[in-house]
């Protein structure tokens, strides 16, 4: 789905370049020693973070945008350089090496004076592909929403125009269908900015993830770190703004036999576990949905390469089918992009609503 251009292009080139492919491609990730196509690596490379922004594979050579590497280690202090210095893993830079295989695949390891890898990895604060994608999406959000806000101030009380028309129904939807019913009429306005921010961030990154060419195509919302952070935000907001009833409910759950609370606090333990599992489910749901979509679409593409290794004619035939499948998957992913952004926002609102709810919480369950 991402990189469709690259793959389609590669598909056309595949047969003419088949021979040179093996000779010229020294990139370990693409099975340097073995010309057999490795779908696992292929898919994995596309959905994981990277120190390069891969644009195209041209005649077996990877054309990629080098990104800044920022490393800190107790041995060599702070080091800042472009990832191009690694030459796609062909050479070390200073005492750092970008690994393309093994346990630390995709990571930068530090080499000791004797040329052997050190046990501890340096602290990697590099501007990776996902970081750039985040910056890009946040820049778009800044631009879009600041200009929309300006339009609201400028055209006070008037009908919306242009971009406003596009954004307003979504904002009103989040407000009236998500925040209001879940959090309640009294307090929803306090949490609305966060819900809007999360919704638009996830939606925008889901959509950008479907764009196959730079600056889209990064698997941001399908990255566990991003979903971890977003879920953590919801977790913190939920528990910081939680009312007395919420904690009372956890410690002394009403409607449960006393022997489940004393002497062994089984119920409080279960309830407390629930506090943690809610954001954990948020994190996994978004990550799994987006990643799975990408994997399926890429797997369909991999079929083309599999069959190409067997028979060129078969590959042509299969490519038509897989393209159809991939288009179908992309449409499905388009739907998933909206649904997952909505679900994350809705559940965040529901969790916040449950935490700040007064009295009612004690009556249910």
């Amino acid at each position, binding site marked *: 789905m991402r990189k469709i251009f690259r793959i389609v292009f590669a598909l056309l080139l595949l047969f003419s370049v088949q021979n040179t492919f093996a000779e010229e491609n020294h990139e370990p990730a693409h099975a340097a020693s073995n010309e057999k196509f490795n779908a696992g690596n292929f898919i*994995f490379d596309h*959905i*994981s*973070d990277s120190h390069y922004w891969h644009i195209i594979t041209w005649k077996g050579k990877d054309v990629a945008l080098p990104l800044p590497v*920022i490393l800190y280690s107790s041995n060599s202090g702070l080091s800042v350089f472009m990832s191009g210095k690694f030459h796609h893993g062909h050479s070390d830079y200073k005492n750092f090496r970008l690994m393309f295989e093994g346990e630390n*695949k*995709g990571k930068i390891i530090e080499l000791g004076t004797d040329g052997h890898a050190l046990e501890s990895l340096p*602290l*990697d*604060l*590099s*501007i*990776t592909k*996902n*970081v750039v994608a*985040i*910056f890009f999406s*946040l820049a778009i*959000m*800044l631009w879009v*929403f*600041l200009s*929309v*806000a300006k339009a*609201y*101030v400028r055209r*006070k*009380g*008037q009908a919306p125009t242009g971009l406003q028309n596009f*954004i*307003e129904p979504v*904002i*009103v939807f989040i*407000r009236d269908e998500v925040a209001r019913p879940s959090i309640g009429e009294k307090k929803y*306005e306090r949490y*609305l*900015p*966060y819900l*809007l*921010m999360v919704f638009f*961030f996830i939606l925008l990154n889901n959509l950008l993830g479907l764009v196959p060419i730079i600056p889209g195509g990064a698997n941001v919302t399908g*990255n*566990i*770190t*991003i979903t*971890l*952070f977003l879920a953590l935000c919801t977790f913190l907001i939920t528990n910081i703004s939680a009312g007395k009833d919420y904690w009372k409910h956890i410690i002394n759950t009403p409607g449960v036999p006393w022997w489940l609370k004393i002497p062994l606090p089984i119920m409080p333990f279960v309830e407390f576990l629930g506090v943690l599992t809610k954001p954990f489910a948020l994190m996994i749901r978004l*990550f799994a949905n987006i*990643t799975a979509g990408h994997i399926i679409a890429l797997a369909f593409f991999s079929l083309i390469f599999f069959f190409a290794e067997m028979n060129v004619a078969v590959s042509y035939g299969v490519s038509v089918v897989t393209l159809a499948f991939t288009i179908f998957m992309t449409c499905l992913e388009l739907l998933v992009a909206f649904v997952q952004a909505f679900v994350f926002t809705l559940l965040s609102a529901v969790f916040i609503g449950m935490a700040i709810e007064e009295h009612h919480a004690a009556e249910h369950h």
Partner: protein
Amino acid sequence: MELVTPGIGLLFWMAISFTIVFLILKKFAWKPIINALKDREDSITEALNSAQKARKDVEGLKADNEKIIAEARREKDLILKEARDIKEKIVAEAKTQANAETQKSIETARLIIQNEKTAAINEIKQQVAELSVSIAEKVLQKELKDKKEQEALVDNLLKDVKLQ
């Protein structure tokens, strides 16, 4: 495993950039947009309400007008009726008064006539008395001459005497 292992660097940049952008957007975008939407919705609601109120007012005015017109009509009828009553009363009164006046004049006339009549009778009476006296005188003067003459004389006299 790497797929489900959070990266420190990514988390770091994500936290910083997301928080900064969130704070900027919260202050300069979300709040103004939310407020503007709310203001606009409030003003629309208000406008709709006032329009409805105006419509109700107009309807009220219409009802009032009709009431006023009905009132005026009733009043007009009342006034006309009163005027008719007054007219009839005045006419009746005038009639009564005229009758009384006529009666009075008739009465007066009758009184005058009575008086005149009484006076005439009295005068006649006086004249009769005077004539009687003068006749008596003359009769007495000729008393002795002839009885026939006397009788002729009385007849003559009586001839002369006529009730005026």
